[in-house]
Structures are given as structure tokens and as C-alpha cells.
């Protein structure tokens, strides 16, 4: 028995050490540097206490990045979940070529986010304006990525186009776990389609809804690749996400310590939102 325990320890301890070295240790370092003024390459640094944190709250660029990221993440999370649920319902209906369509809708998930971003960059910059010219539409004739006001919509479109793939498959998996006789019973009761959806389908999907909402929210709060490929954070700072700001300031702007402090705040924000989402959605699962 002791031998068995020893074996179990030997299976986990190397992993624990490696994980500590490459994940926990850098996390602690990040927190440590957030209390210094290190620029990332000089030999020395001083402790500055909470100065970085105090400065963050007065930094317009930081505020701007948080506002953009939240606006983006909320819109993307809602759109992805609504659209992928609709597609999953469609794919679950009695349609022709179901497997073919299922394959098409999942396809974007296997494509690299960065490259998809470059392709859409061209579509926004060239294809849609051309189409606008042909149709004589002035709204379509501009490149929305070049507009401070609308560039974020372009990023939303790309993220949704690609993000619905995975969530659709999860919702479809959920729909297939619902027993047929539940629908037959509701049919006999004379319930309408709308009523059946809200009283049977949606409650039965509660667990999938929770996981999809949390996944989509977490992914969109960390948005980076799409922005690199589409706008680089511009025009100006109109689409600079938190991840982008930390990357640019930390690696190129000599703000290692300052952006570490920003990352600590970002971490707290993500934990609070995830816990809140899980609590709220799981409570809803229970009630349903």
C-alpha cells in the first residue's frame, strides 16, 4: 500500500515542480514586479509600493482599454451564444445534408485566428468597399477598420464568425442529450414551438449554456490575435484591448513593472467575472 502511495506521489511531483517553475513562479514574479519601477531591461529597480496601481487608475489609456475590452466581450459573448444556439437548433431540425452543414459550420474552428484576421482585413479594406461601390452604397464603401467609431464592429464580426463554430457543436451535443419523448409529451399537451423551446429545450441546455457563456466571455476578455491582424489597436487607440496594451507597453514601451500591475488588476477582474458568472448561471440552472 505504501508502495502504491509512493508511486502516486512520483506521478505527480515532477508535474507539480514544472508547473510551479513555469506558471506559478512567473505569476508571483509578475506580482512582485508590479510593486517596482523596473522597465524590463535595466539592471536595477526600486520598490515603489502601490504607485503603479495608483497611476493605473488615472491612466486614460488603461481606462480606454478596459472600456473597449468590456464592450467588445459583452457584445461578442451575447452574439456568439444567440447565433450558435440558433444554428444548433437548425442543424438539429429535419434538414437535408445535415452532416455536410455541421462540417461547414465547424470549419472556422480549425483555422488560425491570426490568419482569419488577415483574410477579413482584406475583405473589410477591399472587398466590402468594392461591393459598396457596385451597389452605390456609401456606408459600405468605407473601410470600417479605418474608422475610430466602427473599427470595433469589424473585430466583433471576425470573432463571432469564428467563435460560433465551437459553441454550435457544444449546443448541438446538448440538444442531442434531450430525450425525444419529452418533445412528444409537450406535443400532446398542445404546446407551441416557442413554448416548447422555453419550457423544455432551454432548461435542458442549462449546463451547456453556462459553459458556453463562461468560455465565450473568458476568450473575448483576452482578445489579442484578432486585433494584431485587423487593426493593431488603432485607429489611434480605438481598439486597444487590455491584452494588447500589456503586450505593447510591456515589451515595446519599457513599462514592464507598470504593465505587470495592469496584469494583476486584469487577473482580479477576470476572476471576479468568472466566479460571478458561474454563481449566477449555476443558480439559474438550479431554478430551472
Amino acid at each position, binding site marked *: 500500500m505504501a508502495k502504491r502511495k509512493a508511486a502516486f506521489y512520483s506521478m505527480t511531483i515532477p508535474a507539480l515542480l514544472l508547473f510551479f517553475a513555469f506558471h506559478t513562479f512567473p505569476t508571483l514574479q509578475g506580482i512582485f514586479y508590479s510593486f517596482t519601477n523596473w522597465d524590463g531591461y535595466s539592471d536595477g529597480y526600486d520598490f515603489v509600493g502601490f504607485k503603479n496601481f495608483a497611476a493605473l487608475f488615472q491612466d486614460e489609456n488603461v481606462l480606454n482599454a478596459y472600456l473597449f475590452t468590456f464592450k467588445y466581450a459583452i457584445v461578442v459573448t451575447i452574439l456568439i451564444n444567440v447565433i450558435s444556439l440558433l444554428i444548433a437548433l437548425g442543424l438539429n431540425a429535419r434538414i437535408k445534408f445535415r452532416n455536410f452543414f455541421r462540417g461547414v459550420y465547424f470549419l472556422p474552428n480549425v483555422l488560425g485566428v491570426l490568419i482569419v484576421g488577415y483574410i477579413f482585413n482584406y475583405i473589410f479594406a477591399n472587398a466590402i468597399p468594392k461591393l459598396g461601390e457596385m451597389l452605390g452604397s456609401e456606408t459600405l464603401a468605407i473601410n470600417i477598420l479605418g474608422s475610430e467609431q466602427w473599427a470595433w464592429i469589424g473585430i466583433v464580426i471576425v470573432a463571432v464568425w469564428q467563435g460560433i463554430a465551437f459553441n454550435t457543436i457544444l449546443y448541438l451535443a446538448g440538444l442531442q442529450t434531450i430525450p425525444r419523448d419529452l418533445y412528444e409529451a409537450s406535443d400532446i399537451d398542445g404546446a407551441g414551438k416557442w413554448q416548447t423551446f422555453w419550457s423544455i429545450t432551454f432548461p435542458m441546455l442549462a449546463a451547456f449554456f453556462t459553459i458556453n457563456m463562461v468560455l465565450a466571455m473568458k476568450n473575448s476578455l483576452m482578445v489579442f*490575435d484578432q486585433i494584431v491582424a485587423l487593426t493593431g489597436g488603432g485607429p489611434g487607440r480605438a481598439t486597444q484591448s487590455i491584452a494588447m496594451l500589456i503586450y505593447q507597453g510591456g515589451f515595446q514601451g519599457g513599462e514592464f513593472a507598470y504593465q505587470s500591475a495592469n496584469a494583476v488588476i486584469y487577473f482580479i477582474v477576470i476572476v471576479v467575472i468568472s466566479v460571478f458568472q458561474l454563481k449566477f448561471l449555476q443558480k439559474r440552472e438550479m431554478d430551472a
Partner: protein
Amino acid sequence: MTKKRSTNWFITILITLGSLLILFPLYMTVSIALKNPEEMAESIFSLPTGLHFDNFTRAIEATDFFSAFKNSVVITVIAVCFILLTNSLVSYAVARNMNHKFFKGLYFYFISAMFIPFQIIMLPVVKLTTDLHMNNIPGLIILYIVYGLAFNIFVYVGYIRSIPIELEEAATVDGASTYGTFWRIIFPLLAPINATVAILSCLSTWNDFMLPLIILSKPESYTLPLVQYVFQGQFSTDYNLAFASYLLALAPMVIVYLVAQKWIINGITQGAVKS
């Protein structure tokens, strides 16, 4: 009853229209990659009239495609194999000792890392890997294997706990070691969940951009997505070259997907339902 079994054409049409929106950007990619600038000037939407494969030969040369392709394959294949072998082993030890403080603590320790945004470790990890001379392909592979634990342990432990423990007890009585029991009895039973983990890790490793961007220091170790980023400046106005390069970078995973589509989707579906 007969009415219900007939095809719903209305939804079929809606689903078809939706799928056109999915396919349109891919149509653009393929057609631009095969055109020349004169055809582009006529119309950017039309099908190419001839097939200009010289776009591809130029893209292969400009981006050193085969070197990047080889790097991506090496990184993905090695990382995925080691993720399957090591992450499942760790999860087994944890799953079978959840009543023990140490292992239960370990479970939550790994899982809680999922909530730590990569940005907080991004800056220190670059310093760390540079100091350890790990800012290269082997270093990157190690990071993928280690970071994979956070999510994979969650998937594996749930699955392993559903496997009856009596199977192992019989083996132990027969004198098999704990490692022997895992490799000979448990690991083969993990096949369905291994498939899920393999697919998800394969996609995320192959398509990852940020970790290669900050870790890899030498151009000869660049991966496919990173190469697209680095050469973006040179592509600037030569769209045919750019799209030929994008298509080459996307093609390997698309081909794998076309061949193994059913298997990939089922793998993800099963993983979702079981955990």
C-alpha cells in the same frame, strides 16, 4: 407522424444561407490565391480564369514555407504526444486519491491556473525562458505540455473517476505495479477522452500565435502563424502572394479536418457530454 418526418425546407434554406456566410471568406482566399494582379483589377469577386500556381511558389520562397511547416509539425506532434502521456498519468494519480489532502489540493491548484490570464505571466516567462536558454522550439514544447495540465486535468479526472476501481484492484492483487496498472489497464480505457484532448491540444498548439511570438527568438524556428505575421509587411500590396501564403498556412489543418471530420466533431462532442 408522417408530416413530422419530412424535410423542413424552410430551415434547410436558412442553414444553407448561413453556411454561405461561413464559406464566403474561404472562397475569397482560394480565388485570390489563384489569380494574378490583372484578374484582380477586373473583379476581385470573380473566379480565377487560369490557375496561377506561381503565387504559391513565390509564397513558399518568400516565407520559407517548408521550414515553418516543419517547425509547426514538430512542435504540435511532440507536444500532443507528451500531453497525452503525461497529463493523463498525473490526472490518474489525482483522480484515485481525491480523498487525500495533497492530491485534492493539487487538483484545485492546477485547475485554478485556468483563471490566470496569460498576460500576467507573459512578461516574466519571457525573461525566465531566456535565462534558461529555453527561448527555442524545445522550450516552447515544454511550455505547451506544462500549461496543458490546467485544462486537461479537469477533463481527465472527471473521466477517470467514472472508471470502476475494481478493475485496478484485481490487477493489484495479481501483483501489477501502480505504473503497470495505469499503462496496461487505465490508459487504453482512456481512448475516447484521449481523442478529445488530442484534438483540442492539436488545434490550439498548431494555431497558437502569442506563445511562439514571445518565446521563439530565431527566425529559423518560426511557426506558420508567426511567419504570416513577420511577412505581413512584405505582403502589403501583393495580395495574391499574401493569400497564397495564407492558404498554404491554413491548408494542412483543413486537409486533416476534411479527412477526419466525423472523428474530430465526435471527439469534441463526447468530451463535452462526459465532462
